[in-house]
């Protein structure tokens, strides 16, 4: 009996100590929140601190982290319009043979050294060198031979690109510190990166977290939060738990069901706004897709609004072209009706019916984008009702890239396309121009319509030209645009979050509510 009581007491004491320790651990997390540290559960890892090379340089989701530490040449506002950043003025000369850039004065790097026009030229020239591994080298090599006079830079146009300044607020368009980079080298920069951005890197544990401290000397004004901790939480369920438990105050890219549930909870609220990312079905100019009736029927049969309402809980904007309302070449007059009867008529004209369906394969990812596979399942169901029998083939996103680059996609393939600068060249252009490795529709008629637009110098004519191309693509149905995605952001009600239409989650745009 004595032995049993002793055992019982020992167990009780052990449990008490254990629970006490656990309670303390829980408390420590809460204390951290009260200390003013803004903690964000981010959905991707940060592989590298060089924003101009490697796969991370072209990963749109990572740009929000880069933009917290580095400045881009030109600032892009949350509505995708452009504003003075490190460059306060920019443009071409009259005959578009030269570019000019005026550099902001009074800016300092995170180490206190002054920022200058030399840093801008260094960054442009470095990004244009093939040996740096810059995937965007082909963009930056279109200007060169820079000369500096005070804070004004002049350069030659080697190949005219009307979007060159838009690229300056897009992928790889970051200004790096010349003197510091040359002093510490790539490895040293990777270990201790500095920029001119609103936050300085305090500590970085790869795959775990990034701790930032406010840059009090930021040219745009010191950010509201003194410290920001970005936890890399790649699993959506864990991000939900992070914000629900209060361990993180902000998170993004969670299932819409969870978004709706969390924003109803006391102390939490959210933002759900359309971003520059669309869902679409690539059509390859092979097999049955060479039949215009089949293409048009496939498009008319899809009820995009129903898909958005039922699968995405209303979070999405149906599209008729690859241009969203925020993009420069969006034309609201281009529409495409959901009309299953018309789809049947078109198929009948080509000899197909529900009894004799047209057959092809549609490829899709599963889980790469919200409800991607389910969307394709729903579309295949809609197609079946009009006389299209499509077989679904699931593949990984890496396989999609490989097949697309080799022009070997199936007749239909689901994909998403981002375009955070909002220019038609980086959406309709690269997605639909035959010679581009991103395009799978290679018909000569479309190539002939797009080709002159790449170098069009009259901006008004250029944008109108792209609108005309979009209309032509819709009429011929060379691609099936589906919807514009909405980005869910859940955050503590005590914080105000300004969503950016590019999809970048920027701590500098967060303030106490």
């Amino acid at each position, binding site marked *: 009996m004595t032995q049993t009581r002793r055992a019982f007491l020992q167990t009780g004491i052990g449990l008490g100590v254990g629970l006490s320790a656990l309670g303390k651990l829980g408390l420590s997390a809460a204390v951290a929140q009260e200390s003013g540290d803004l903690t964000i559960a981010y959905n991707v890892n940060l592989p590298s601190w060089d924003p101009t090379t490697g796969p991370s340089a072209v990963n749109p989701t990572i740009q929000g982290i880069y933009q917290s530490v580095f400045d881009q040449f030109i600032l892009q506002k949350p509505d995708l319009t452009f504003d003075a950043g490190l460059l306060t003025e920019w443009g071409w000369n009259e005959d578009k043979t030269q570019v000019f850039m005026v550099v902001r004065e009074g800016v300092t790097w995170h180490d206190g050294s002054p920022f200058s026009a030399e840093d801008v030229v260094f960054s442009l020239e470095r990004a244009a060198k093939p040996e740096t*591994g810059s995937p965007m080298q082909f963009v930056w090599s279109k200007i060169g031979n820079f000369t500096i006079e005070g804070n004004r830079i002049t350069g030659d146009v080697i190949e005219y690109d009307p979007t060159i300044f838009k690229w300056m607020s897009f992928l790889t368009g970051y200004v790096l510190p010349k003197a510091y980079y040359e002093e510490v080298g790539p490895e040293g920069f990777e270990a201790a990166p500095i920029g001119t951005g609103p936050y300085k890197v305090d500590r970085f544990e790869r795959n775990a*977290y990034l701790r930032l401290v406010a840059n009090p000397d930021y040219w745009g004004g010191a950010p509201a939060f003194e410290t920001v901790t970005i*936890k890399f939480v790649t699993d959506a369920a*864990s991000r939900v738990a992070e914000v629900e438990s209060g361990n993180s105050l902000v998170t993004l890219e969670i299932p819409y069901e969870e978004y709706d549930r969390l924003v109803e909870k006391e102390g939490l609220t959210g933002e759900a706004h359309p971003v520059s990312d669309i869902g679409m079905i690539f059509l390859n100019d092979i097999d049955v897709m060479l039949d215009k009736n089949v293409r048009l029927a496939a498009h008319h049969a899809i009820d995009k609004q129903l898909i958005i309402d039922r699968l995405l809980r209303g979070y999405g904007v149906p599209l008729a072209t690859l241009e969203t309302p925020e993009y420069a070449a969006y034309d609201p007059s281009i529409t495409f009706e959901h009309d299953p009867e018309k789809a049947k008529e078109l198929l009948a004209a080509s000899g197909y019916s529900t009894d004799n369906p047209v057959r092809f394969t549609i490829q899709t990812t599963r889980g790469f984008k919200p409800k991607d596979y389910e969307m394709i399942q729903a579309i295949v169901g809609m197609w079946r009702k009009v006389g299209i029998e499509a077989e679904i083939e699931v593949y990984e996103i*890496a396989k999609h890239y*490989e097949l697309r680059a080799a022009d070997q996609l199936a007749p239909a393939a689901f994909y998403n396309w981002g375009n955070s600068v909002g220019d038609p060249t980086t959406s309709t252009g690269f997605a639909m121009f035959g010679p581009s490795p991103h395009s799978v529709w290679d018909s000569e008629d479309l190539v002939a319509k797009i080709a002159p637009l790449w170098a069009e110098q009259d901006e008004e004519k250029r944008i109108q030209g792209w609108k005309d191309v979009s209309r032509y693509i819709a009429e011929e149905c060379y691609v099936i645009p589906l919807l514009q995605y909405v980005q869910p952001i859940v955050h503590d009600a005590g914080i105000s979050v300004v969503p950016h239409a590019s999809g970048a989650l920027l701590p500098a745009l967060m303030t106490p509510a």
Partner: protein
Amino acid sequence: MLLKTLLARLASMVITLFGVAVVVFVIIRVAPGDPIAMMLPPGASDADVERLRALYGLDRSMPEQFLIWLGGVLQGDFGTSISLRQPVAGLVLGRLPATLELSALALVIALVLGGFLAIFGARHRATPLEAGVDLTNGAALSVPDFLWGLVLILLFGVLWPVLEISGRVSPRLDLPFATQFYLVESILRLRFDLTADLLSHMIMPALALALPLAAIIAQLLKQSLKEVLNLDYVTLARVRGYSELRVILREGLRNAALPTLTLVGVQFTFLIGGTVIVERLFSYEGLGNMAIDAVINRDLPLIQGIVLLFAVIFILVNLAVDLTYSLLNPRLRHG
């Protein structure tokens, strides 16, 4: 005899690793997904593709690539990660301690939990309590580790938030560590505040990994114990007046533990494999988490490095188990 066995095993280890290297090298190149296609920005031309392919040495034939890589490996150079742009050897060795600590903690939890359940079940054999142990084992075994992870997150991360959901250590802490073995070093430096913080991050992923293994240990050890407890020498111990618990712990456990030890060795390698998903779920900065990123980015050199390291771990663990078994089993030790 033991030395001869050891040398033979080390020789076979080299051959096995070479085989693994060849298979992995070929498979990840044949498998769908081109790392260059993954990093193609809008507007890239075929010439840009070729330029990047040449930059990463992917324009050469597969045998040529393999020989270059193998030559580097023999000199300790495992290549440079495409996505992280750092030497692979440094990256994987830097992450290894985190995974080893997590796996070791999971193993300890599994042994304690499994051992307790086995002894409890054996002590109360042929009673409803044993059936309860079997039921617990069945539940622990039938749920995969990642699902346990989600359940634990819900319980101890959300409903009763006493443990950290993600990461390895709290970002607010400054770590004075000289090595990547944070847990070990925090104990050795008597920094128990850091030990507590580390454990608050590690308990849930370790428990998720441990539960299925604990169930296997419990089931096998209980069965072995029940068999041993019917042997004559155990009956003799009972006749001497020893309590049943003492009989189990002092007389039965040593003999019953041998088959369990072999199983634990094999299962431990599976447990390390399981860290891939569990580390991802808990955003734990170990090898497994890195492996998933490497696969997503089709980072060929990094995948090769991680798989080769996992292979080394598997071989070493199996070797250690065999040696321990030889030491514990007198028939093998002398035979």
